[in-house]
């Protein structure tokens, strides 16, 4: 959507900043990934890639007030990557001569694989764009986000399923629809200990694992095309099992057992965090009761911070 336009020094700009209204931006957390691995592009080259499991009920909110001089200051000051993202967005909008004050407020816990940092970055990019009465395409937001923080995820696409190259900021495959309707009962393994995501070395996958990812991609494509939560759950489970060989989570087998006992669709994890999620078909009769029982079983088994999360079942006004 184009802005209303304005004039500055005689020239007409399609998107001049509104100096009296701060821009706002919002971005959601995620619950790790449904699938993560390496995937071929159409020329046969391998890229690290993932399918994010987005959450809509935890958000980061950013506010950007444009100032007529260079430089971005941020509150709280430790959100350096968000400030960097704001600067990159100003440059993208051909407005590097401007700056401003960025305020970020987040309800997303840090260090468990909820993607708090990416949410801050994406919310900030959106806030700056909004100050210019602009909405950027998800692909542009993702590219800027990767520039700001080295590795990102696909939350800018919200519930639209994409296979995203998290270190390059490009989409490997658009699956063409939203994820199937699911609920995720999420909890923390490893006694809720923090993980320093970016300090982790990237996983080195075996040939068999790399070949397996090709099939996982096919399963994801099919599950999205036919909105099949069971197939998606089976694919996520296999991806989680592969992840377990590279970054083991304590009590992963226990989580698999709970999922089996309650006939869940499958199990997903934050491949570089401590989150585990048990996936349910949102359209199954009695899903709320099953979710409660699974949550109870997970808490009894010693998992921390158990939450029942319908995935994008209620769309928030943006």
């Amino acid at each position: 959507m184009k802005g209303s336009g304005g004039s500055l020094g005689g020239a007409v700009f399609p998107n001049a900043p509104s100096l009296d209204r701060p821009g706002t931006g919002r971005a959601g957390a995620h619950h790790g990934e449904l699938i993560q691995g390496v995937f071929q592009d159409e020329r046969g080259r391998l890229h690290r890639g993932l399918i994010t499991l987005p959450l809509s009920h935890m958000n980061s909110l950013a506010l950007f007030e444009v100032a007529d001089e260079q430089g971005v200051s941020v509150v709280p000051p430790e959100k350096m990557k968000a400030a960097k993202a704001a600067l990159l967005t100003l440059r993208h909008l051909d407005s590097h001569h401007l700056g401003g004050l960025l305020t970020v407020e987040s309800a997303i816990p840090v260090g468990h694989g909820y993607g708090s940092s990416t949410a801050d970055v994406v919310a900030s990019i959106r806030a700056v764009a909004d100050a210019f009465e602009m909405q950027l395409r998800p692909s542009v937001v993702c590219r800027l986000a990767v520039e700001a923080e080295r590795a990102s995820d696909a939350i800018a696409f919200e519930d639209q399923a994409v296979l995203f190259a998290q270190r390059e900021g490009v989409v490997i495959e658009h699956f063409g629809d939203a994820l199937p309707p699911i609920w995720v009962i999420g909890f923390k393994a490893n006694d809720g200990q923090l993980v320093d995501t970016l300090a982790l070395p990237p996983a080195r996958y075996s040939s068999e694992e790399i070949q397996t990812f090709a099939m996982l991609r096919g399963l994801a494509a099919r599950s999205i095309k036919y909105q099949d939560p069971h197939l998606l759950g089976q694919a996520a489970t296999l991806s989680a099992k592969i992840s377990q060989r590279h970054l083991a989570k304590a009590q992963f087998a226990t989580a698999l057992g709970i999922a089996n006992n309650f006939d869940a669709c499958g199990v997903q994890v934050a491949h570089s965090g401590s989150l585990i999620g048990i996936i349910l078909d949102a359209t199954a009769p009695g899903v709320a009761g099953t979710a409660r029982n699974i949550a109870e079983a997970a808490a009894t088994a010693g998992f921390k911070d158990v939450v029942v999360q319908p995935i994008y079942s209620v769309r928030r006004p943006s």
Partner: protein
Amino acid sequence: MRFDADYFEALETPRMARLAANVVAAAFPLMKLMPARYILDRAEAAGELKGKAHIVETTSGTFGMAVALLAAARDYRLTLVTASTLMDSKYQARLQRLGAEVIALDDPRGDGNQKGRLESLDGILRQVPDAFWTRQYDSDGNWLAYARLADLFVRSMGQIDCLVGCVGTGGSLCGTGTFLRSVFPDLKIIGVDTHRSILFGQPLGKRVLRGLGNSVLPKNVRHELVDEIHWVGAYPAFHAAHRLFRQHGMFMGPTSGAAALVGQWVSKTNPEARVAVIMPDEGHRHADTVYNDIWLSTLPGWRTPASAFPTKISRIEPKPETAWTRFDWRRRSLEDVMQLQTTDR
């Protein structure tokens, strides 16, 4: 963008054809392109194949054709060792047109003379020490390549309950089965062999159905994956190939006929199951034999009606070419099954 002349992606990709409400067949023009390309790509990436490298392999035909196509496009030298009973002169001429050197050994016993072929190949490797042997019998590349087929199957079918495929090197069935079972742990894997092939414990002898089965045991046959094994005689396989052509418009080779026969029987006996079938090649190479009534009429016993369903056996033994037998393998090793067979006697 670089044009990958040596990729042959379309030729490598099977047509996914529905044979019944619950059966999908992957009908390949030339299945062996999948492992051949994967093995060569891996060797190139690992630096084992450089410049004008010399590739060698022993083959009954289709793997040789696949490597020959790739070697021609990528400018490698290729020597193929085969047996006179396995390859007609037209097929040999096609391979030679692609620049391959074909060594066809005599096969007095009619068992494919795999031992002689391996000895001949050893001789070449001694003379050309840096030759690259694609090793379809025991290289991991053969089975790993079939993740691509697993991908195509799940994209067109979703959940899969039974996988039916021929066993020669074991690469296609065991590879596809390994990947599919990693996501569908209850997947039933059903192998298709033929009488007098030694792969699943029969004594060695002359085989009329060629392309599947073997006279030696490749490492890529992993018995522990197999739930059930069928021995399809040449005649039921030929009839099944004819039916595929008439009823489905699919002109496929006789091993595809055997796989379709078993796949359709599995689907009828398990109407709730989703069945995937692998069909390795087309019928053109067999136009003068399997699809020729004069040639067929020279086969002893061809007029005898062929089995329309499998006979379940508990003693593994060879049967006439009209017969079709099956055995509950139950994911056991060859040793375990054979041990029980001898104590049963």
